[in-house]
Each structure stands twice: as structure tokens, then as C-alpha cells.
């Protein structure tokens, strides 16, 4: 597992039923491309977040594939429709098999 991987999300606390809300996510991660060499000339192995998903009340919002061209500390912004109160689940999948999750509840205003 990469060190200090920390997901953060920005989610409104509530929404109107049927409203589309903006979700923002950041995860601290080096996103090592596999193209760089260290000082001794050896290739630094690729180590990236390769997939991200977001589900609302079990329904898929976004399933994203990330390549090494995505910047360090990947930022992802998108919109979700909120029909009912429930959990918004964010999941990041690391090359090394680690899975990072964050869950934010949302209520209906």
C-alpha cells in the first residue's frame, strides 16, 4: 500500500429529491507513471490509482478508468442525481491491490 493515501470528498449535506449535485473528490497519491528513472537509472515501477467509482444508494454514478497521465493526487469532479436519503460511496482502486473507500450520508431537504 502506498504511504499516506488519504481520500477526501466534498459533498453537500442535503439535496432536494431528484436534484443533481456536484461531487468533488481528491485522493493523495503519487501516481507514479512507470516512465521515470531513479538516480541510479533504474525505472521506478508504475504505481497508480487505476479505477474510481461512485455509487448513490447502490446505483452507479461514475465508473472511471485512470491512466498514468492523471496528475498526482487525482481530482475528480462530477454530478449525481439524489432521489432519496442514503449513502454516497466513493471507491479508489490502487495498482497494488489496495482499495480506499469513503462514504458520505446525504439527506433530503
Amino acid at each position: 500500500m502506498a504511504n499516506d493515501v488519504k481520500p477526501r470528498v466534498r459533498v453537500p449535506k442535503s439535496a432536494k429529491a431528484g436534484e443533481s449535485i456536484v461531487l468533488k473528490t481528491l485522493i493523495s497519491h503519487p501516481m507514479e507513471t512507470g516512465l521515470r528513472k531513479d538516480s541510479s537509472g533504474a525505472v521506478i515501477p508504475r504505481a497508480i490509482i487505476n479505477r474510481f467509482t461512485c455509487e448513490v444508494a447502490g446505483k452507479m454514478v461514475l465508473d472511471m478508468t485512470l491512466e498514468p497521465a492523471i496528475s498526482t493526487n487525482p481530482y475528480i469532479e462530477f454530478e449525481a442525481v439524489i432521489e432519496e436519503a442514503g449513502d454516497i460511496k466513493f471507491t479508489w482502486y490502487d495498482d497494488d491491490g489496495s482499495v480506499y473507500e469513503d462514504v458520505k450520508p446525504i439527506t433530503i431537504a
Partner: protein
Amino acid sequence: GNWSRLAAQQRLTQDQLLQFDTFGNVTLVHITDIHAHLKPIWFREPDTNIGVGEVKGLPPHITGLDFIREFDLTEGSPEAYALTHSDFTALAKTYGRMGGMDRVATVVNAIRADRPEAILLDGGDTWHGSMTSLITKGQDVVDVMNRLGVEAMTSHWEWTFGTERVQEIVDGLPFPFLGQNIFDAEWDEPAFDPYTFFERGGVKIAVIGQAFPYMPIANPGWKFPEYSFGIRDGRMQEMVDEVRAEGAELVVVLSHNGFDVDRKMASRVTGIDVILTGHTHDAIPEPVLVGETILIASGSHGKFVSRVDLDVRDGRMMGFRHKLIPIFSDVIAPDPEMASLIDEGRAPYKDQLEEVIGKTESLLYRRGNFNGTWDDLICDAMLSERDAEIVMSPGVRWGASLLPGDDITREDIHSVTSMTYGECYRTEMTGEFLNVILEDVADNLFNPDPYYQQGGDMVRVGGMGFHIDVSQAMGSRISNMTLLKTGEPIDPARNYVVAGWASVNEGTEGPQIWDVVESHIRKIGTVKLEPNSSVKVTGV
């Protein structure tokens, strides 16, 4: 207009400079790009200001006699002296220095006496550019601008003091620091007030701020990593629509985009009445119209103050009257309060500032698309003091001029070099990389799409000559790169010893450029520069 009337006069008076037939119900007063020049200065306008693509031959891309003809000025007149480089040395001796914030205060006070509700707006590049502003981290200028009664500002070089200092100053400002295009880099959310409202003359006025879009490229982004800028003209449209929805009858954009970027933005964003432009340091004696938007360019270094009177009725701008007021320092009386505030700020450093380092027999100036004589002197200093084969000096547009016969003081050197990242580096670069740099900077200036321009001038080069065809595309403009010392073509594969300053890279090492220049001038005593023909320009 006012300018030709003025031109007919034999002698200048303060009343004449201030003469204005009050018009409509709203007055805007615009100053921009003062670059911390609080005292009167010489300032020679450019002899070369090339416009490419759609703006070729349009203001501000005309100079000298073409400029005089375009605006119906008279050769040798005070306004020809103020606005062009033509016959600069002789006219400077006739008409004297320009600017000085104590004189600007007199003008602002006079406008307020005539129209008490006039709004004073500062276009940015205010806190940076002098030895005292560097020492006080902008405080001397902030004190002056607060006393002047600025009511909103936007920003560019302010950021080179770093986020912490900018925040510290902004927290104490009695007016908003606007930038609709400044976002926090992490979450991409607006970081500063996008606009502010004024109720003046019975009119609701919105002023939207636009900071310099290319901050982290043109200046060291590591000093303000928390922020992202950009043109963001889509959000500008949203802001215009928002203020209109909130009842704004007049929409003013206080911009630091640079003239050509503003001209393009005016064609893409609807609903802006007035753009007060800055950054490219153009002084244009008449407003430029783009659709229903007027663009006002107010020069730099305190040389001019723009007054714009507007007639706003039924939620619309019905007409305007404009004057670019030249600040002739021998004609406009200094405001005594402001004069003493400025002198109090200088007092602790007076001896350092006014110490004479050398003398110049040549006219020293910078402004223009390619090397000015100040740049040649700075390049000579680096070649000699840093023992380099090739040197590069940034094509910034700030810095005062000196006349033949003038002493060169330490303050004069700082006027053309002061900055928070002035380290003069010495390194090796391949001929190929030198070509990449010239092509890259040339495209920042001569890309036909203004949104790809950054508003500086071409990097100044010493020890190397080159040809540039400004009409070509990026990668094809530069040719005939030659090492001047030997006359040999630059070898793409060879390493050259290169010195330069104002690197945007963190951790750059070297002596401060002003010390390098001072040491050089001390050694030569009197500066006498030969004409520089090392850059050949075609495709104009």
C-alpha cells in the same frame, strides 16, 4: 478631441491638463501598472510594438510617427512626448519628468472636487517594482494607494510577494481585492471576491475584477501554489449575467488581462460596458470600441490617469466622454500630504536609494518588443560579472528610462530589476535548448490568438544574435542563432555557459541581479552603449 485641443496650446498648465466637460452621471478614474514608481520618472514608450493576426496595425500596435498620425497629434507636442518614443531625449528636456503619485493625488482630488462620487480603480501591478517596495514588501505603495482612496483593485505582480504577504495586505485593505478568475488550486473554487457594487449618481454599478491569467507561468508559481488563475471567460459571462440580474445598470471590468486578451474577451462576453485594461502598459488616447464595450488603456508607471464620464440611464450606458490625463510632473502641483507621505516612506533608505553608482552617456530605456538599452546594459553586466557566453534577461515591460547625462543611482537600477526572485543564475544550456526558449517566448508574444499571449516582450539576449520572422508558427520563427564573440552559428549539440535572472524555478541560486548590474556600472564608470543590431526582425 481633448488631445488635439491641447496640442494647439503653446504652454501647458495644470488647468488645461485637468480641463474636462463633466458628462453624464458616473465617473470612473483608472490607474494601473504603477510598479511602485511613486516619484516622477522619465519613461520612453516603445519604438516596436508588433501586432500579429487580426490586431496587426491596430492600437496599441502602432508606434512613433504612425501613432502621431493615427491620433492626430503634433510632432514635438507634449502629447507626442508622452505617448511615443519619437525624439524622446530632446522632448524630455523640454517637457520634464512624468508621473509621481503626489501629482496623481492632485489630479484625483481635482476630479473628486468636480464629481465627488467618482470611483477610483487600480488595475494592479501596483505593489512591485522599486527598491523601497522590495524592502517594505509593498507596504510603502499600499500606504500611498490607501491614502489616494482606491476603491477596488486587481492583481498580478502583487503575487510575487507570496501568498502569505498578499493575504496579510489584503486583510488590511479598506477596499476589495477582486479576481473572478482566482480559484483555489485544490478544490477549484473561487478564492477572492469576483465583483463589488457601487451606488453612485443614482446608478448601481458593478465592478468585476480580472487578475492576470497566467500568473504561475509568467511568475514563480511556487510562491502562490494555493491558487489557479486562467482567463475563465465563461465564468466572466456568468458574473456579468449575475450582476445584471442583481440590478447592475453599468458593468465595468477592472482587468489585468493585457490589451489584446481584453479585446478578444470583449468580443466573446456580452454585457460589459467598460473594460479598464492593464498589464501590457499601453497608453491609448481614445477608447477602443469592441461591439458595445469600450476599452480604456491607461499606460503605466503613474504616467497617466484615465477619467471616463458615463451617462447611464434606464439601466443602459447611453454615452461616454474620456480623457487620458498625462501627468506632467513640472506642470501638476504635488499634493503636499501625499508628497510628505512618500518622503516619509523613503526617509529610512534615502542614502541607499540616491547613492550615485555611475553615469550614462546613452539614453537608457527598456520598453519595446526587443532589447532596449537598459536590457543591453544588464546583459553586458551578466556577460562580464558572471563570465558567461550567452545571457538572457526577461522581457518585462516595467522600469523607468534615464536620459544621456543622467547619473545612475541605486534606485534607478532597482527600477529595472527589482523583484523577489532576482537571483542571477549561471548554468549550461545546449544550443538546441536555447532555440526552444526563444521559440517558446516568441510564441507567448506573437501567437496570432491573443488567448495564447502572455503580454510580456521578447526575452532579451546578450552574447548571441538571431533572426526572428514573427509571421511564422511556433518552432519556425527563430533562425540564424549566432555566437557573437566568434561569429559562429550556435551548435544545437554544444553546451554554452548561460547566465540569466528572474527564473521562475524554485531554488535558483546566484547573486541578486541589481548587485551584478551595480558592480558592472561601478567598474565602467560611464555607460556608453553601441547600437545593438544582433536581432533581425522580419514578417512584420
